[in-house]
C-alpha cells in the first residue's frame, strides 16, 4: 500500500493536467470565441493528426532535424566549453564571439541562412544547432571553470597528460553542470525547431500548425500545441532519467521535504 502522501505525489502531475484542461474548457465555453476551441474539441483533433500519414511524416521529419541539430550541437559545444573553461586564451578568443551571438534570437538569422543554404533541412538543422549550442557551451564552460585545481593536480601526479585530464577529469567533474546545459538545450531545440518551420514552411510539425492557423482550423492548431507540448514533456522526462543516472554520484542524498502542513 502506498501512503496517502506518496499517492498524492504520484497523482499530482496528472491532476495538474486535468485541472489545466478543465480550466481551458471552462474559459473557452465562457468566451465563445471561434479561434479558441474547447479542450475537448482540441483533444478530439489529435487522433486525426496522428492517424494521418502525411502529418506523421511531417512530425517525424521535425524530430529528426531536432535530434541531429541537438546531437551535433552537444558534440561540438561540450569540448569548446570545456576548453574555454580551462584555458584563458581559448576563453578570451571565443567569449566576445559568443557574447555577440547570445542575445540574437537564432530564428532571426534564418532569412540570411535561407539565402545561403535554401529552405531545406540544412538551414533548419543549423538553426536548431545554434539554438542548442549556447546554453551547452555556457554550462560546460562554467562547469570546467569550477573544477577543483587539486583534482587536476592529483591527475597530473598520476601521469595524466593535459588532454587526458580534460577528458578524464574535467569532463566527468563538470558533467552535472554540462547536463543542466543540455537540458536547457533540449527545450530550446524544440522551440527553435517549431520557429524554424514557421519561417521556412515546407514540412514539419510547425508547418502543420501554421497551415492550420492560415486555414482557420483552430482545433487542429490547438491539437498541435498539445502534441508539441507533450513531445517536450516526454523528451525532458527521458533526458532527466538519463541525467539522474549519469550523475547519481553528485545528487544530494535526501530531498528535504518542505512541509506545508
Amino acid at each position: 500500500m502506498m501512503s496517502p502522501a506518496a499517492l498524492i505525489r504520484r497523482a499530482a502531475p496528472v491532476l495538474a493536467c486535468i485541472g489545466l484542461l478543465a480550466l481551458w474548457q471552462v474559459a473557452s465555453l465562457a468566451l465563445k470565441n471561434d479561434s479558441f476551441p474547447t479542450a475537448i474539441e482540441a483533444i478530439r483533433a489529435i487522433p486525426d493528426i496522428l492517424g494521418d500519414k502525411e502529418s506523421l511524416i511531417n512530425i517525424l521529419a521535425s524530430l529528426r532535424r531536432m535530434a541531429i541539430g541537438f546531437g551535433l550541437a552537444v558534440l561540438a559545444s561540450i569540448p569548446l566549453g570545456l576548453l574555454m573553461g580551462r584555458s584563458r586564451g581559448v576563453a578570451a578568443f571565443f567569449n566576445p564571439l559568443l557574447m555577440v551571438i547570445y542575445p540574437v534570437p537564432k530564428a532571426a538569422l534564418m532569412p540570411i541562412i535561407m539565402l545561403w543554404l535554401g529552405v531545406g533541412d540544412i538551414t533548419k538543422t543549423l538553426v536548431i544547432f545554434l539554438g542548442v549550442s549556447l546554453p551547452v557551451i555556457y554550462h560546460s564552460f562554467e562547469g570546467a571553470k569550477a573544477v577543483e585545481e587539486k583534482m587536476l593536480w592529483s591527475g597530473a601526479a598520476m601521469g595524466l597528460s593535459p588532454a587526458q585530464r580534460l577528458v578524464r577529469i574535467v569532463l566527468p567533474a563538470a558533467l552535472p553542470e554540462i547536463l543542466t546545459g543540455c537540458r536547457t538545450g533540449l527545450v530550446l531545440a524544440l522551440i527553435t525547431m517549431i520557429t524554424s518551420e514557421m519561417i521556412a514552411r515546407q514540412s514539419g510539425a510547425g508547418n502543420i500548425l501554421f497551415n492550420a492557423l492560415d486555414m482557420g482550423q483552430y482545433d487542429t492548431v490547438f491539437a498541435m500545441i498539445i502534441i508539441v507540448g507533450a513531445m517536450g514533456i516526454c523528451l525532458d522526462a527521458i533526458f532527466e532519467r538519463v541525467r539522474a543516472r549519469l550523475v547519481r554520484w553528485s545528487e544530494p542524498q535526501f530531498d528535504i521535504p518542505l512541509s506545508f502542513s
Partner: protein
Amino acid sequence: MTVVPARSSEWVRPVTSQQPASAIIEIDRVSQVFQTSARKGHVALSDISLTIDERAFVSILGPSGCGKSTLLYIVGGFVSPTSGTAKIKGRAITGPGPDRGPVFQEFALFPWKTVLGNVMYGPRQQGVRAAEAEAQSRTLIEMVGLKGFENFYPKELSGGMKQRVALARTLAYHPEVLLMDEPFGALDAHTRTRLQNDLLNIWERDRKTVLFVTHSVDEAVFLSDKVVMMSNSPGRIRQVIDIDLPRPRRRNELLLDPRYQKYVVDIERMFDDGDEGGPAL
C-alpha cells in the same frame, strides 16, 4: 591491520647504517611571491633552502599561513617558485610526476568514482592490469580501515574517511616521495593514532621519502627523522631539528621516553619564544 602492498618489493632495499645518505630533494633558495589584488607582492616563502635525504621522514611544522602547503606544491611541481630551484635526484623539478605522490589537505578525491575507483585510478593509469590493481587497492582500503566502503561515493563519506581514501589513493601508485599535507588533520584522536602507526609501519618497511606537513608537535616528533620548523610572514625556515630516536618506534614506549618528551617540550618552547606564536595545536 597492516598489509604489505603487493609491489613493495620494489622499494625494499637493504638499508645499512654505514651507507651515506644521499639527497633526493634539494630546495635551493626558493622564494614564492604571490601577486593578489588584495596584497601586492605577498611573500609566502622567503629564501628556503632544504635538503631531504633519500628514505627520510621529514616533517614541516609551522603556524597557519607560513607557506607549508606552498612549499609542498613546489616540490610536487604544481607551482613553480618565483625564484630559486627545487631538484629531485639532481634534476630540476619542472612539473608533477608519479615519482612524487601528493596527499592534499583538501583530499581532492574524484567524486564520480567510488572509493575503489579512486584508489585504483593511479595504478590503472600506470598500466597495471585491472584485476591486479583492484586486488592491491582492496588491500590498501582495508589497511586504512575502510573495508566495506569500497563502493561508496566520496559524498557518502565523512571528512576523516575521505582523508583516508586520499591517502590510500596516493599510496596505490607507489610514489618514491610522499608529499602529505596535514593528512591526519581531520581525524579523531583514535583513528589518527592508528593511521600514524600504519604510516610508520609502511614507511619502516618501504622506506619511501616522506615530506609531511603537520600542525602537531607530537605527531612530528613521533614520526620524523627531521623536523623543519617554519615561521610566519614571510615564511622562513626557523630551525631544523634531527629527531634521534630509535626505530621501529612504538607509540606506547615512546610516550614514556624522556628523550621524546624533551623533543616535544623543546620544540613547543621554541615556538612560544618566537614572536609569531606557536603552531595551532
